[in-house]
């Protein structure tokens, strides 16, 4: 694990990169990294995240700045800019049921090829997918998702990179921290090793590649 500035962290991300971004309606999103993506004008991004947040918040900032080319998410209904860009064919949007999305990411992080879920069977979500019958029940084969980078926000990070999260700001963060080639983390507080008790570490240090320094 290396400690870097937000500027250095984002400088590693090329245009056209595939990014997972933690957060749920902008809660638990690494805002400083998103601000820096906008400042450095990283464009043609492929974004995997739960939702499109709202303008001015979380990944919503990337739509404000028109930096996204492809979005995989479960919900974009509260971001009119993302909706407009989708309707105008400026971004390709793949809408995925939320439970399927998180399991596809989990599978990507756990070395699985995909998961079988009953969600979406018999609906338009089924189109182009392989239905598999198990014990008389139909499941869809949903393939694993991975990314070049995961942008993660934690509540506590220690000097080694162990992470703990706060309340509903946990959401997709620990799952995404398993599913990317490079994991970049911001934290509300960076604390000495030992402050986060072993039982309270949610994301173990070896998963974290870069911790963005505070202050």
């Amino acid at each position, binding site marked *: 694990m290396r400690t870097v500035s937000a500027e250095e962290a984002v400088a590693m991300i090329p245009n056209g990169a595939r990014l997972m971004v933690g957060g*749920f*309606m*902008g*809660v*638990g999103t690494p805002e400083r990294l998103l601000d820096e993506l906008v400042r450095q004008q990283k464009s043609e991004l492929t974004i995997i995240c*739960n*939702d499109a*947040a*709202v303008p001015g918040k979380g990944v919503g900032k990337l739509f404000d700045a028109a930096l996204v080319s492809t979005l995989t*998410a*479960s*919900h*974009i*209904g*509260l971001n009119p800019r993302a*909706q407009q860009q*989708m309707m105008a064919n400026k971004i390709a949007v793949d*809408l995925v*049921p*939320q*439970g*399927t999305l*998180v*399991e596809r990411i*989990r599978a990507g992080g756990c070395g699985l090829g995909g998961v079988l*879920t*009953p*969600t*979406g*069977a*018999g*609906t*338009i*979500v089924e189109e182009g997918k392989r239905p598999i019958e198990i014990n008389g029940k*139909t499941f869809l084969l949903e393939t694993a998702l991975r990314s070049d980078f995961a942008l993660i926000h934690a*509540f506590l990070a220690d000097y080694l990179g162990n992470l703990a*999260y*706060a*309340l*509903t*700001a*946990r*959401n*997709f*963060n*620990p*799952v995404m921290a398993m599913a990317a080639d490079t994991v970049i983390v911001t934290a509300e507080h960076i604390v000495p090793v030992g402050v986060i008790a072993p039982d309270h570490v*949610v994301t173990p240090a070896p998963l974290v590649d870069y911790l963005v320094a505070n202050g």
Partner: protein
Amino acid sequence: MDAQTLIARRVALELRPGNLVNLGIGIPTLVANYIPPELKVFFQSENGLIGTGPIPEQGMVHPHLTDAGGRPISALPGASTFDSAMSFGLIRGGHVDVTVLGGLQVDCEGHLANWMIPGKMVPGMGGAMDLVTGAKRVIVAMQHAAKGKSKIVQKCSLPLTSSRPVDLVVTDLAVISFPGGQMTLLETAPGVSVAEVMAVTEADLLIPETVPQMRI
């Protein structure tokens, strides 16, 4: 009593002590206001919380404690938080006893459409598909008709949320269920006759000999 209050109060009667309950956005959210405090129901918010409490007082908002719409909420004593994989494991794994969701259409087979109007509104399904597929009991809380058109239809024209039929539909006019796979009128709202329900329902609705008034 306005339509939304009526629906929310009727749905609240369906919840049992100890139930794990997920409420959708809109009318379903109001159901929490009509649960007697002694009933001890657990409310889940799918962004990772069991034990959601009321909207916090001014000055008590925590930026890391929100509902699935991103609005500030509180957590009750005994609450727990977890990641999204756990949250949807609870939902898909059949651990959620009841989910209450809004609807655009419900058809005579109990199929729900509630997540998109092609060409007009494509917000995404969020957690709705997993909730309808995985919860033990699915209740739809919605207006019976919108802009003069019945939302209770013979066959959904909008994209389905799940192939799994819902269990109960509560509208401002009626309570409908599907015993033996047959769409059946269970109750009518106070002051509403069976004929009035029939007149605004665009589906074959089985009418039992006696249809009691809605309990609220």
